[in-house]
């Protein structure tokens, strides 16, 4: 937000461009980050949040540094030890909010006191970056989700809904519709633009009849109409370009709504595909634990209840089974990201992957000492980075460091106090 490159005013652009717009022309109008021009290989960010937390006694090792003894969860990731950093003592400040889970909406924004009176969410880190590089790909960013929510928050502070269906997302990414479908899609887009044109004019009429603060509210509406137009124009341009082909079948959605692990695995499988085809460079994944029993062998109690284990040994045992299954999915994803290469680098090297939760201790809805792992993205990994568990390092510091590593001129974000996390070196 603070480094906005001046752009051609969108409205003029729309008026001038007409319909059959070709891509190169479109690109000429876009701000391009310095890094993207220098680097031919795109830089990406993937953020995965498991919103019912992780039982951190099973995650955080006792020893700080490189020679830590792996804990139950880290044992599952031992294969990738050298590609992984475990942060201990990192969080967003002032996350007490309207209820125990409201920090779910601020995990990528760092806005303070979510949900309390006067609260207004701010842009999430992925959307800030998408605002700069988003239009270079077919999809500025992707939101994957097991329940339809996401942590991606627009510049106006609104949550962007997540896609729950892996098969729909696959179709969106890789399947070209028939000529008829494309034609009708074009038609719909054109209609959409004509509607937006009309309502924009209607809003002008409407504005004449309202007060001063009302006008500010209406400005949100204008802004939205304009962004809609812009998206429609971009979408039209992309329709003419065939979608990338991948050598993978369209996945079948899992019907059992309680099968959290199965759903997250299917969503995870889309990540390397979407990144390698450069369909997008920013992905957030919301893994929302549910109020029912996931089909994990040995689990008989619903997930949310387990997270409020009340120190009950049996509940903690079952919780561990679910969380281990989640970590195993992550393990598979990291392995996939290592296997795929571009040029002489692995896909993982060009992708910063953040995995963690907005809750440090879900049993007490505590938002300090969050479980956070970082893989890839050309950082010097391999350690358990022990930070101050009393005075936590702002998670925003990590966001700034990642953005900079992606070539984005971001100096501060959210509640950041520094442009890097002490002890985390880049390559």
């Amino acid at each position: 937000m603070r480094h906005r490159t001046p752009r051609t005013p969108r409205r003029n652009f729309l008026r001038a461009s007409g319909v059959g717009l070709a891509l190169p022309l479109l690109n000429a109008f876009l701000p391009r980050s310095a890094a993207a021009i220098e680097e031919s290989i795109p830089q990406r960010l993937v953020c995965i949040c498991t919103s019912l937390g992780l039982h951190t006694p099973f995650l955080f090792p006792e020893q700080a540094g490189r020679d830590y003894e792996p804990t139950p969860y880290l044992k599952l990731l031992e294969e990738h030890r050298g590609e992984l950093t475990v942060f201990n003592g990192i969080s967003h400040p002032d996350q007490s909010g309207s209820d125990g889970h409201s920090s779910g909406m601020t995990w990528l924004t760092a806005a303070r006191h979510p949900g309390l009176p006067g609260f207004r969410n701010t842009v999430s880190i992925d959307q800030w970056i998408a605002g700069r590089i988003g239009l270079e790909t077919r999809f500025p960013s992707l939101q994957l989700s097991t329940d339809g929510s996401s942590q991606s928050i627009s510049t106006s502070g609104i949550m962007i809904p997540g896609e729950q269906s892996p098969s729909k997302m696959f179709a969106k990414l890789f399947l070209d519709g028939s000529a008829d479908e494309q034609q009708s899609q074009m038609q719909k887009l054109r209609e959409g633009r004509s509607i937006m044109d009309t309502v924009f004019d209607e809003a002008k009429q409407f504005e004449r009849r309202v007060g001063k603060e009302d006008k500010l509210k209406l400005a949100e509406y204008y802004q939205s109409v304009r962004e809609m137009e812009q998206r429609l124009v971009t979408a039209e341009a992309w329709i003419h370009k065939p979608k990338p082909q991948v050598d993978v079948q369209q996945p079948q959605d899992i019907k059992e709504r309680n099968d959290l692990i199965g759903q997250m695995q299917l969503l995870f499988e889309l990540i390397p595909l979407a990144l390698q085809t450069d369909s997008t460079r920013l992905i957030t994944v919301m893994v929302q634990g549910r109020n029912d029993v996931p089909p994990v062998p040995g689990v008989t109690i619903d997930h949310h209840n387990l997270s409020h284990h009340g120190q009950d040994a049996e509940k903690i045992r079952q919780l561990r089974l679910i969380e281990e299954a989640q970590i195993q999915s992550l393990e598979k994803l990291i392995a996939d990201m290592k296997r795929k290469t571009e040029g002489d680098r692995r896909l993982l090297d060009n992708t910063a992957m953040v995995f963690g939760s907005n809750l440090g201790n879900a049993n007490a809805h505590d938002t300090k000492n969050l479980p956070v792992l970082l893989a890839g993205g050309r950082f010097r990994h391999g350690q358990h980075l022990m930070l101050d568990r009393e005075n936590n390092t702002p998670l925003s510091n990590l966001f700034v460091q990642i953005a900079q590593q992606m070539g984005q001129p971001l100096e501060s974000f959210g509640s950041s106090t520094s442009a890097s996390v002490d002890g985390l070196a880049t390559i």
Partner: protein
Amino acid sequence: MSWKKVSAIFPLCVIGVSVAARSLLAAEISGDVKVFLEKHCLECHGAESKQGGLDLSASSVDLSDRATYLRWVRIHDRMQSGEMPPKDSQRPEAEEIKPVLEWLSQTLNADELQRREKNGRSVVRRMNRAEFENTLRDLLDVPWIEVQELLPEDGRADGYTKTAAALDISPVLLAKYGEAIDKALNAAVAKWSVPPEVERHTLYANQQYDYKVLMSGGDAIMLTPEMKYDESRFPMPSASNADGNYPEGKWQFGGKYKGLGEAEKDGVFKEGLTVGMTRTFGESFGGRFNFAPVHPGRYQIGVSAWSYWWDQGEVKPSPRSGSVGVYCGSRLLGFVDAPSLKPTYSELNVEIEPTEENHLRAAGTSFLDAHVYFSQGQIKAYSGAGVAIDKLVVTGPLYDEWPPTSHRRLFGNLPIVPFEKLPPNAPQPARPTTFRQARGAFNGPGRLVPGATVSDDPAGDARRLLATFLPRAFRRPVTDVEVQRYAAIADARGKEGASFEDALLESCRTALLSPDFLFLNEPIGTLDGYALASRLSYLLWNSCPDDALLAAAMTGTLNDPNGLRGAAERLLGDPKADRFYQDFPDQWLDLRDFDLTSPDKQLYPEFQPYLEDAMRCEPREFFKFAVRNRLPASQLLSTPINIVSQRLAEHYGIPGVEGTRFRRVDVDQTTNTRGGFLTMAAVCKVTANGTTTSPVKRGAWVMKKILGQPPQAPPPDVAAIEPDVKGATTIREQLARHREDTSCAGCHAHFDPPGFALESYDVIGGWREFYRATEGKKTPDFARIFRSYLTPEEEFKNHVNFSDGQPVDAGGELVDGRKFTVLREYQALLNSETPVFSRNLTNQLVVYATGAPVSFTDRPAVEEILKRAGGTNPNLNELLHQVIQSPLFLSK
């Protein structure tokens, strides 16, 4: 002016200015105020001690910032109530405080009034998603349409989704609203030139696949019309003939048939008969009937059912009346009665929107967690409660006229011409798939004649139809120019080759995305009739005005107090007012968070869908009763009147209530504290976390929601108490440590007591004397806890796995020293707070009704409402009317 005035006296920390450098003491403050603050406040609320988190020397004075404004209001209020400066300090004289209060009050008022001059009290807002859905339903007459799920959740501000601050607009939201509008418009259009055939079917339970499987598996039996089990006609599978073990050691399909197919071939199910089951929903039993509605619309569904006690082959009277849940897919249509040995036919009239999985389903409701009532394939050896279903009778879709009203709202009386009769080159409307057939349902769409609405004079008809549609959509008269603008869209689409139907829909779609539809627009100052009509209908119906209300706006009736009262009465008497009776308590008391937590199944096995639904309906039924019967406000907190159904009465320990219908039952208040919102199961649930209750959370809820005195958020670094359900410690013991800390004690002394008083109610609102615990040796008196699940011999035979933990102590002491030992005594003490409660209730109604917070400046208006409504304990109906008649409601 105000801003300058404040900052002249507190030239301290305005945003961005270095705060530490200057303090209140160093600043030039003239007159009494400075002297007062220095003398009485700064010692505790200065830069060093910052008690209660308040540092006056670093406090912002930018009153345009909401939080700052509220902080100063709070300071004013604390001083006015005499709470500050505190008792143990040197108290200033009354005449010393007075000018300070006056000055503060003037300053706060001046700022607010200045703001209002330019914009009014409220800010223009869009509809929230419930209003949006209701408005589409009512405007287009498609009452079955469900679009809320498509839309992102609304924010909340001041507790409600009714104010501009809560209702953002984003491109995503706009796109989603667009999808919802498309869906609703598509649903409104009639696609057939003649109405779809009405399906009429009698579906006997024993002929439904799911039930056959249940019977052959030994968890249900066929019953004769004499309500008997006749082994010779309907042999039970051998799997269930065993007294204990299965015949060959494992479950297998049994009886004299090898499989279901063989039994069918032999004609076992040929005659339509009753099925008595011991399983309920959720136990691998879907209860599907082989019919799935294909067309949206009104359906009549009749169910004949009864209950019994199954005793190893014999049908006996049931100790309690049962009930049947009726669903379409996963959507609950309703619960119907199944009295003991008395086949009872009930009818449900429902609006159905077909979805992918939408078989009609019916089965007995369960009382305890599923496995308990499971006869495990051995029904011969089983004794337990059962529900019998005779049949389900379905009729629909039912239309009062064709084309249906929804279609007429858009296309008036234009004819729908069959496709085959259209001229060869005439454009046909592009329509999304119009129906989906559920797998396994025997019914099809029936004979259909697809057709399109045609016009001989597209330009003229578009103008004529839009001139009727737009005023309804925009809730105000429209000008010819406006009609012209929207008609031009249809003209253009028509020229491009679209059908008339598609072209006109394009105009409508555009209108519904425009701010005139999405925003509730109100002129600054006194509202005109139309803006008033919308305020009224969005208050009482959560939706747009109907034609009668718009007519009242046009004639000026609404501008007359009697006319307005009459209109409000009419709206309150309409079934659509249920939306208000549901939504207001939902928002006010946070009851919409009902589903956020699920009770631990081991500890609360009785939390089943039927009970859950009853808990969800009770606040609406109670509030509706209270408003319609003009109960005094204080009865919302404590009353002998309960509005309950059988299941809820059982949950509450109220005897003698039979059936699913909600009705009034008065309890003896000396022995039963149940009655009013405080003891309502839904309230107990939303103030608990699902597994445990916390007096802190409940107490804070009472302070905030009931008394309107929200406690301050805990200091940032206090760790929350970790719940413990093993039963070793009570929450009271854990809290005691917390309260020993003096910095915590000050606030906790205010809000813990009401929480303690409510400790007698568990996380689902059941009465308890002991906490339920997962570990521990003390066996609870199950027969007492689960009175409704006893056998005819009054024994409790089910397996329930929890223990008695620590005993509950519901005593406490209010901050003023008054003590109580049980909830009843606390309620008596709370009674003296009735004026505070009434005022808060009025405030809540005002926020909800006007879409703006009640500010400092609105206080006299609120007092006036209370006065006119009858004082400190007004009757609820009159209070509502006085809110509507107040200047706060009548002007923006």
